[in-house]
């Protein structure tokens, strides 16, 4: 049995060639604004992946910038997408979604029903394996799940007889995103980056993607990474842009730094109609010029301080 649909697939040799020609191994200052990072590295039609969710350490400020720049025809890897996918679809940015987990609420569900966005049902594990294949430079990885499902024909997977056991096995095609975005606790100007807590596929996806945009709560000295190399999540030569975006995960939480703003999340949860969506986008995204203005106009420092105070669990996050 074989998946019958379109799939985002890059021959490992083509990805290698791209890495050779486009990923600099030179440690240069890559700090730039969110406007510059998104306009330079997110093209219309790009395949976009990101790490974690709108509620926890998601690159929310970067996603808002993508919407603000009215990117078009994005294909997203919806691993744990919660509020991100409805916003991207509502902003007219995204037309295809590899699912994953397609949250939240009725807006995105109806967008699928209405054919506004095309979905390809993988699973969280299949998508993680596909990205790992991309990071290992191989065209596929075998998995022993996804078999027997209705998702398989709506994916790019193939079933073969395993030559070692002669049992059927599922081969999932490598996934090399055009762009990977991740919000991190700490980065240096070159792109070395560190996160605390769990992650979905931070290093895999950084290695497997053509462009990597990092937004960071803090910019720290490069030597800090060299003093504790076991804590480096991503080394600089995988990274194209570093954006200093304190509260970049807002309204989600940054573990150990600030908590979720449930009030704002409820506003997102409440979006049902197209009119509500467009009002929300107008107010919170189009209506401000950048992340800083968003924080100043729509969140405010008292609220941010409150969210920081709530983040009282520090164990493991420093």
């Amino acid at each position: 049995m074989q998946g019958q649909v379109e799939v985002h697939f890059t021959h490992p040799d083509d990805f290698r060639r791209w890495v050779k020609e486009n990923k600099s191994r030179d440690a240069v200052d890559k700090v730039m604004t969110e406007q510059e990072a998104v306009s330079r590295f997110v093209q219309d039609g790009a395949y976009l992946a990101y790490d974690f969710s709108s509620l926890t350490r998601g690159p929310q400020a970067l996603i808002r910038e993508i919407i603000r720049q009215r990117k078009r025809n994005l294909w997203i890897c919806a691993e744990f997408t919660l509020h991100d996918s409805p916003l991207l679809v509502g902003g007219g940015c995204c037309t295809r979604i590899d699912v994953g987990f397609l949250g939240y609420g009725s807006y995105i569900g109806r967008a699928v029903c209405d054919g506004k966005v095309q979905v390809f049902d993988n699973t969280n594990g299949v998508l993680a394996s596909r990205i790992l294949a991309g990071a290992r430079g191989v065209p596929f990885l075998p998995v022993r799940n996804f078999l027997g499902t209705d998702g398989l024909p709506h994916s790019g997977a193939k079933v073969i007889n395993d030559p070692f056991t002669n049992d059927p096995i599922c081969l999932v095609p490598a996934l090399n995103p055009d762009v990977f975005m991740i919000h991190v606790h700490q980065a240096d100007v070159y792109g070395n980056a560190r996160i605390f807590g769990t992650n979905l596929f931070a290093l895999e996806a950084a290695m497997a993607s053509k462009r990597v945009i990092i937004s960071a709560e803090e910019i720290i000295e490069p030597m800090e990474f060299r003093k504790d190399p076991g804590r480096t999540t991503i080394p600089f030569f995988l990274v194209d842009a570093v954006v200093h975006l304190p509260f970049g995960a807002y309204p989600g939480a940054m573990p150990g730094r600030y908590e979720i703003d449930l009030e704002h999340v409820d506003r997102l949860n409440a979006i049902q109609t197209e009119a509500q969506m467009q009002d929300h986008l107008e107010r919170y995204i189009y209506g401000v010029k950048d992340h800083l203005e968003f924080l100043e106009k729509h969140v405010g420092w008292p609220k941010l301080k409150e969210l920081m105070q709530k983040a009282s669990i520090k164990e493991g996050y420093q």
Partner: protein
Amino acid sequence: MAVVEFTDTEFMICSAARLLEDRKTVFVGWGMPQVVAILAERLYTPHLVQLFEFGAVGPQSLTPFIRGTMGGPSNIYRSLQWINMNWAFSYAATGYIDYGMLGAAQVDQYGNLNSTFLGGTYEQPGRRFPGSGGGNEAASFVWKTIVVLKHEARRFVEKVDFLTSPGYLDGPGARERAGLPKDTGPWRVVTSKALFGFDEKTKKMRLLGVLKGLDPKEVIQGMGFTPLMAEKLLELEPPEDAELRLLREHIDPSGIIIRGEKMRAER
């Protein structure tokens, strides 16, 4: 004898929590299964190791439970290990995870699960849900899958509209023929009124018991298939006071998860 009042959700959560075994491992799905696992840990299975697909192994979650966050600090508090998704699924793929607990929108007589869409076609569904998440991995890899869903007859169907996560597919031996790991599959289906298991030979769903005071015939009325019946049906106990207190005062004081239809039972 006293009458106890509770919601259908509360009953389902308590019923599921009682199924877990201490000193074992469980793959915990998003949402209600998280609440079940916390309740079980506090009351029945203090040494149960919970695994989350986003890389938390063995957390001792704080309460109140914060909905939706998954990887948030209070839900992954004092874990044994923080790692990532590929590793989390590897623990399950290699057989280290005993139980899995999942929700679903639809289930059929072989325990196949649909969490993708209802009605219409894949391209133009009637109603769209989040899809597999890590549910497919749990249902494929753990030794015993526990499905938790609200008891509505329309959720029990002859054939799921979309097979998101595998039960016994079309019957005995079908999982193995498909290439799925041996001796795995759905073990219990916990609803807000009943408890089901699966017949070892036919792999078909079997009613094991209903909430004390309910009529089994009424409970299964309208289901899209007729489940097998256990020789002796269990009377499922309503929630204990200790369970309700924990749920209402500590785990979900805002009542967002545990709200539901009011029920009552004697005990």
